[in-house]
């Protein structure tokens, strides 16, 4: 069979001593930068680009890919330990992972994240190998109308992210949407809410907002009450999950892998939704939804798997179309061109060694990551025993460096400070940051695609229901909306009944 011989060739390329070495360097570097708050894969790969000149094309791409998915692993570590998500996917992990850590289950949370990521990464890699070309055809069916409906679905689901008041969650989503509007309108070129500052012309930086509302806000809260913090760090349970916990995480990991694999294929921002979607699904399916937001294992297992599966399948549009799904993929394209490889549909046929070598290396890299990370968990957890007055200045300094490294824009640092304060005030008033972040990420995509769909349909709004995929997504949104509000409505009705009885 073609596939088997191709995979065999891929493994022979990827398992040469040199390439194994580059894969290892990549995943170690990736884990490290993932663990350092704020410093992302984009900045690191950009810094390493000149070095790749000297390497074989396949080696350099294997290393860069390793950094990318290594960072996905490492990113969840800071999200869990110090509530500091470095990218949109780990923002969801932070919700329940950090609560687990506060309850002394940091080891379990980290192990769950690593196991989930490994499983999802392995499955998604096989999907890439088996179905890359047909999946690309599906992704191309997604036009502006379909993306709009997908984003609507995402926003509807975001309400389910909240574990408190639905009204407050909606308020946060709307605030997030408004913050997402900051920057230059792509259709008219008009700057919106930039306060005349050119540095905000391209919008607010996601990393700055996320680190502010999650991380810095949490630091402020911890400083307010040093006592509570110390209690939490003293009880650390065993590191490896129990048999019961394994059983608990199996379902979420499987479902998360499915959702992540599907959404990762869409180049127009589908992968962003993966971890949010998985979280919503697990919360809806759970017998104990009230535990979500207070340290639910499924709330870590599902989203982490989804995010890693999405990270792997987002290579599909890159490898088959030469089209980047995110800034990291754009850098990989740059790396290919510098090496004299024209990315695009011809890569599979012209450079089979490269194509299959990268795919095989992804599996090897995922294996390396899980082997590397499981023993490291003990070390990460020990970090929590470092006195907070030592830890927090380090975290703040590293985050500031990390945020600055993304664009080299000092205004991003002002944004971190502002959103740190905002996050602190929000937590005092019991507003949650996750719906805000989702609104912030989805808002611009929602608007961009709504307006593009309307221009393409010449102002005819029926385009959203006459296109089958778009219509299907809108129907699912409606169902989710009903599912979310039904319990509330029922509860209110019950209350009315009780009152009238009394």
């Amino acid at each position, binding site marked *: 069979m073609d596939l088997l011989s191709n995979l065999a060739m891929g493994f022979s390329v990827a398992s040469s001593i040199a390439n194994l070495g580059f894969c290892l360097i990549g995943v170690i570097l990736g884990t490290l930068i993932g663990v350092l708050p704020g410093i992302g894969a984009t900045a690191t790969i950009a810094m390493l680009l000149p070095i790749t000149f000297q390497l074989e094309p396949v080696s350099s791409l294997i290393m860069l890919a390793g950094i990318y998915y290594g960072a996905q692993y490492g990113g969840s570590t800071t999200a869990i330990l110090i509530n500091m998500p470095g990218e949109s996917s780990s923002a969801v992990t932070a919700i329940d992972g950090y609560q687990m850590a506060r309850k002394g289950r940091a080891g379990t949370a980290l192990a769950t994240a690593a196991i989930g990521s490994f499983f999802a990464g392995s499955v998604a890699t096989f999907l890439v190998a088996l179905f890359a070309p047909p999946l690309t055809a599906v992704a191309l069916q997604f036009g502006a109308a379909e993306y709009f409906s997908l984003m609507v679905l995402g926003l509807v689901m975001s309400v389910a992210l909240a574990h408190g008041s639905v009204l407050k969650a909606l308020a946060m989503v709307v605030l997030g949407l408004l913050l997402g509007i900051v920057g230059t309108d792509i259709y008219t070129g008009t700057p919106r809410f930039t306060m005349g500052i050119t540095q905000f012309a391209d919008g607010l930086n996601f990393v700055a907002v996320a680190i502010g509302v999650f991380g810095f806000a949490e630091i402020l809260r911890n400083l307010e009450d040093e006592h509570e913090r110390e209690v939490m760090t003293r009880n650390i349970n065993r590191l490896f999950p129990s048999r019961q916990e394994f059983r608990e995480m199996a379902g979420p990991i499987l479902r998360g892998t499915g959702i992540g694999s599907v959404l990762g294929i869409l180049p127009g921002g589908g992968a962003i939704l993966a971890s949010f979607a998985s979280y919503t699904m697990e919360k809806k399916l759970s017998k104990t939804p009230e535990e979500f937001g207070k340290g639910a294992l499924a709330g870590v297992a599902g989203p982490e798997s989804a995010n890693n599966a999405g990270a792997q399948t987002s290579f599909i549009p890159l490898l088959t179309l030469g089209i980047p799904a995110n800034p990291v993929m754009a850098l990989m394209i740059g790396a290919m061109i510098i090496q004299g490889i024209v990315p695009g*549909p011809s890569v599979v046929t012209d450079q089979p060694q490269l194509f299959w070598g990268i795919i095989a290396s992804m599996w090897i890299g995922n294996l390396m990551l899980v082997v590397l990370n499981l023993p490291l968990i003990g070390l990460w957890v020990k970090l929590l025993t470092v006195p907070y007055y030592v830890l927090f200045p380090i975290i703040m300094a590293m985050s500031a460096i990390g945020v600055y490294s993304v664009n080299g824009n000092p205004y991003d640092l002002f944004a971190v400070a502002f959103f740190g304060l905002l996050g602190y005030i929000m937590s005092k008033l019991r507003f949650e940051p996750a719906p805000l972040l989702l609104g912030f990420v989805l808002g611009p995509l929602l608007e961009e695609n709504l307006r593009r769909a309307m221009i393409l349909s010449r102002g005819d709004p029926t385009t959203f229901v006459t296109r089958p995929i778009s219509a299907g997504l809108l129907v699912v949104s409606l169902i989710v909306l009903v599912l979310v509000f039904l319990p509330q409505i029922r509860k209110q009705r019950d209350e009315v009944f009780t009152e009238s009885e009394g």
Partner: protein
Amino acid sequence: MILTLTRRALMGTALAFGLAGAAAAQDFPDRAITLVIPFAAGGSTDVVGRIVADRMSQELGQQIVVQNVGGAGGSLGAQQVAKADADGYTILMGTVATHALNPLILKQKPYDPVADFAPVSLLVLVPNVLAVNPALPVNTVQELIDLAKKEPLAYASSGNGTPLHLSGELFKTMAGVDITHIPYKGSGPALTDVLGNQVPVIFDNLPSASSHISSGKLKALGVTTAERAPSFPDVPAIAETLPGYETYSWNALFAPAGTPPEVVETLASAAKTAMADPAVVARMAEFSAEIVASGPEELAEHVKAEMTKWEPVVVEANVSLD
């Protein structure tokens, strides 16, 4: 009074800097040079910049460090170099966007493309291409024009006010047709939608579209340069149908205004040598970029010519950004 003082003070500083510069220019470069690329890493300007920087480093005996300062359509990076010390240690990879289009389009001018820079070398010209999804029943530029007169069409570009958008607008004006412009956030998403036939027509950089043209996923109707591109000899120039139509993107090195002429000369000659290197020539050919490697005077002329050429297009297309 204040004005005179300031002017005198300025002249004094310029003189002092000039003298210091002349002394320093002797042993230029004695430390690393920063090449500011005003776009995100991974794009076509970035790729050209990195290849050139790598080869020029060998030539100058000092490392050229690439720094990506993306944002505001290239204006942030250009602005940074305009304000940098005029010693040749901070240089810019300028483009048609930073040195012709943005200054014409932006209502608030963050820098002056002529007065704030010392031109170094025009490195390459990059053709753009007009391409369609193969499902669109046209095979030539003329057939596209005829179709556009009969039914509404739309074209995708990498964004508002980009060279590709204005190439499209110039095409519309010269052909006398109306095609709806659909801006995207960069070339990648625009290409995706044309490959998926969500939008039938695209103006794109030839390098980014080339693999799709070769594989038949896109049908190239014409290149935007006056002559056909050597990498695609079978694709006619749009000018063969619309005489006088000519647009292209370009990349050029600029130093801040006031950089000592000897330093500019050193940089320009290093760029010239780099662009003559067979490995670089091969890369640029794969990339469909035409090597120019001009001197400083030619680049200065080129910037003026480009601004004159684009001004009426910008006015006609009514593009302006705050």
